[in-house]
């Protein structure tokens, strides 16, 4: 009996949507949305982003973020690590301006909020799954 329970437990966990696998799968893909960026030199500007996550391991995702203010395109790449079912944290790098920073992702179903900060400014965007 005990052996039987141990045997089916992994399957039950998968069927129950264990966050370690189910939410990780839902982060992968493309997300669109908008928000604001607050540069250290200059006024707050609206920004729109398209962020693509690609699964590298069960907890690590590479990130490619294409964002735009009214006049400028900002491309950054990075990696995020799953903290728990709905939170990810990581670093990003922008090669055009040579700046690095920190990024926090909070996922809720098909929506997420991304907050980022660096030496040149900070910002937040709200995204929906494409």
């Amino acid at each position: 009996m005990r052996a039987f329970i141990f045997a089916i437990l992994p399957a039950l966990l998968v069927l129950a949507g264990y966050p370690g696998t189910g939410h990780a799968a839902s982060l992968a893909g493309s997300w669109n949305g908008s928000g604001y960026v607050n540069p250290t030199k200059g006024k707050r500007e609206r920004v729109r982003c398209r962020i693509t996550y690609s699964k590298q391991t069960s907890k690590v995702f590479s990130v490619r973020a294409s964002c735009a203010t009214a006049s400028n395109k900002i491309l950054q790449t990075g990696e995020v690590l799953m903290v728990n079912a709905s939170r990810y944290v990581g670093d990003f790098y922008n090669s055009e301006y040579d700046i690095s920073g920190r990024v926090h992702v909070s996922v809720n179903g098909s929506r997420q909020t991304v907050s980022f900060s660096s030496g040149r400014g900070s910002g937040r965007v709200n995204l929906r799954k494409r």
Partner: protein
Amino acid sequence: MLSNNPVRPEAKGEPDSRLARILWPLIALAEFSRLRPAIALVAIVLLTAIMLVGFKWLAADDSLESFLRADTPGYHTYETLRDRFPSSDLDVFVTAEAPNLFTADRLQAMQDLNFTLLIADPVKSVLSIFSLKQPLTSGDLPPSILPEDIPEDEAKLNSLSQQIYAHPIANNRLLSSPDAPQQLSLFVVGLDPEFVRANGLPATIDLLKEEIAAIPETESFKIGVAGVPAMKAEVIVSTARDIVLFNSVGLLVGAMICWLFFRRALLVLIANIPTALAVVFCLGLFGWTGTKIDPLMNAIMPLVLVVTYNNAMHYLFAICRNLDSGLAKGQAIRYAAIEIGPACALTSITTSIALFSLMFSSSPLIKTFGLLAGSSVLIALTLIIVIMPVCAVYLLKDGRSYLHGKGSHQGISLLDRLAERISRTVNKNREAYVTFGALLTGFFFFAYFLLEPQYRLSEMLPDHGQAADVTKRMEDRLGGVFPLNVMMKWPTGETPTSPAVRNVTQSIHQAVAAHPRISKVSSLNDLQNWAQSGGLAPQAAAERLLDDLPPSIRSRFVDLKSGSAIITGYIADLEAREILRLSAELEGELDRIRAANPNFEISLTGLSSIAASRSTSVISQLSISMLGAVIVVIAVIGLAFGSLAMAGLSVLPNLFAIFATGTWLLFTNGGLDYATVVGLTVAFGLAVDDTIHVLNRFQIEKQTAALTSEATDRTLRLIGTVLILTTAVLLAGLSVTQLSAVPPTRQFGLICIFTLLFALIADLVILPALILVTHGTGDRRAARIALQNRPGTSQTAETIKSQ
């Protein structure tokens, strides 16, 4: 008619000619195929399989790069420009048109479009009215003129529109005048070079269009996509479509014409097998050599098609005629190889000579075209020599009548009657036809040399595509859209913000802007003026500009790595000579600036400039190499027939064809561009084929005919039908080029069509008349001798000779 009175088998001996003796290896090859058809078949199948493998490397391309490329200082400067300022080549113009753009809804929709373009994967940067900021001050970065939340209030919208129109970059560059019924707003979209390299231009432009189409708000505008990358993408797509279209329609049309006259499916099949294989081998050659197919290369397929059809039909006619005359199959095939094989070989060799002559051009595009086209024609010849005997052995039968039996068609009889009538008319009016032909050729000669090189950049690009239409509207609303660049390199020790660099940039900007044919100029000088308009001192403004401009915008004007700046003037779609004149005038002004600033390197370059100078040089070279090809081909004809007289006879009809086409060009187009000169060279190579077949047949008939008139009459009756029929097939095959959306391909085809028509007239009328006039004195003497040697006449032949 001769064709209704077949020669009795015992009277028809094996044909013989000098041409056949010289080209005996080809006859030997044909004989091998006839005697060992299975081996020949296996070899063909294996080679075809190898060529089909080459298909996987087939790719389409536009021809602009390879046409312009050259080992000249001018081209190297242009390459340097593209290295330092890659955005100059990859700007797509997205236009939004509506009666009044400054409404809240429309501005909001354009803002959405701006954002969508910016975050699209293929896009590196976007310059639009949304990029424009308030004047620089000593404080923080100023905000954009157009706010994030577009106001609804009309007064505020008017104020915004005035600020936009006052910006030096906006007025008549990013936004058209409000006076016109339709306003146009321009989004200059810089493509990401890495994305383009990885995905190709057509896929990149398609993705951009999909992104735009996905924005529902843009339904209130007329959105257009233009610019050189969009036009190039259209060329590549059109070229890829043309590859399939030309070959399938060409084969279909050729087969239909064969059917109309043979009315036997078997004969149509036999004519089409080597033709279809020639196309497969040609495409396989492209694949194996890694040569991309551009609009000019695309013309090789119809060319190979028509040359192979021409030879296949001559060969097939000869085999069928021999079978109809009662010869055994083996003998019929062998005799056809001896009669027609050498003529087919000579026609292919002369066509190849004309094509190989193009390799003397300095343009890699035209060199490659000449090499591949010439090689394809020779490969097609080999296929004919090998395949026709194999097909005849397996598919034709002894004792059957193929041309004039029950199943044959009145079409052949009709052509026979036409050929007979032409022969009678030419014989009766020989002197008149020769005189008229010579006078016309003289007139056409003078008209041909009135042709001048001409070239317009837009004529290399699809004229019915969306991009051409949008470009026209942009020109109407914003002025010229084709760039002319001045690249300036400052000396070591200077910086982009130093007064010397700023002064030289300003001087160049003003010199370019002062030219009446340049509608607008763009450089860092515009941004400098805008930066100073906020009250900053020139040096402070320059330094702020350099710090605060986004790198993707800054790189449009300045390359810090090489220490260069670019000043771009925009011109309309001018003809090459006009651009060269404009460039010469600008150079005069730039020389003044160079003299005042000797340490600065200042070069006038850009796509428009390099295209104008390269085109005139290439076209002039091509004209010379074409005339060289004419001389070589006529010499080859003389050598092949072993007769200066034969070489001389071929001059007038072929020059008639070339110069008549040139005259037609003069009255319709006005000038020579690279496609027409290449077309004339190729068409000459095709036109001379008819001359060779006529001369070859005449030489054979002269061996048995007592009089020249008898020999020319038999020649026209035997060859006339085939010449008309094969010309019809050639014209039909080449007419498919008119379906292309790309002007150079259409122009090439049209030139070939007209040259072939004029060549047919010359070879059916002028050439036989010339033969009769030049050889006729011998006939008249022979006739007199014959008359006086008849019983009852008083004079002897010796007495007459002494008179």
